[in-house]
């Protein structure tokens, strides 16, 4: 199975945010809101960190 980086990231974020939401919140509405917040945070942070690392050299990488 080969997933793209973004698909793998999105699946990871979806599963982890679901578990976090169910563990930390008790009301279904709160769980949904917190789950969406954690999911979007995962995606946003990954994209931002990815762009921050973009200018860095790939050590040892020889195309």
């Amino acid at each position, binding site marked *: *199975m*080969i*997933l793209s980086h973004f698909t*793998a990231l999105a699946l*990871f974020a979806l*599963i982890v945010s679901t578990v976090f939401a*169910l563990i930390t919140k*008790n009301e279904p509405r709160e769980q949904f809101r917190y789950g969406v917040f954690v999911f979007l945070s995962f995606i946003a942070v990954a994209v931002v960190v990815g762009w921050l690392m973009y200018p860095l050299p790939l050590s040892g990488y020889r195309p």
Partner: protein
Amino acid sequence: MDHRNEQTESAHKPAPVLMKPMNMPVTLAICSGGWLVPGLAHLLIGKWVRGLIFAACVLLMFGLGIGMHGKLYDLQFGDPLDFLGFVANLGAGIPYWVAEHFDWGVGTMSWPSFDYGTKFLAVCGLLNYLIVLDAFDIAQGRKP
């Protein structure tokens, strides 16, 4: 004014219903079951929906990790990171031993998604530890 509204809202909100605390041996038995079979602890407590969602999440993540040719760590004391990886993997319970038995967690470093797969396998074990702790709190009447 806002403060008063908050007070009124909280007054109308029904108080969360806590379970009557179970005795410790039963709680530990339930938690052990939840560790071995992800989601089982919540099913035994009676939290069906939560248990099924947890089971689906952990097993899906484990399956994706194996499918992405991730690595499952064996018990080794040589490298501390390998040992921590083993502790994380062990959290998945029975699926870990099943995968080890069938050599599914060998890990193919040249596979494009190897690194993601390894992280999926580690994190699903860690999530299961959190799920077991959640079941412990519910069984002890600390949360609804």
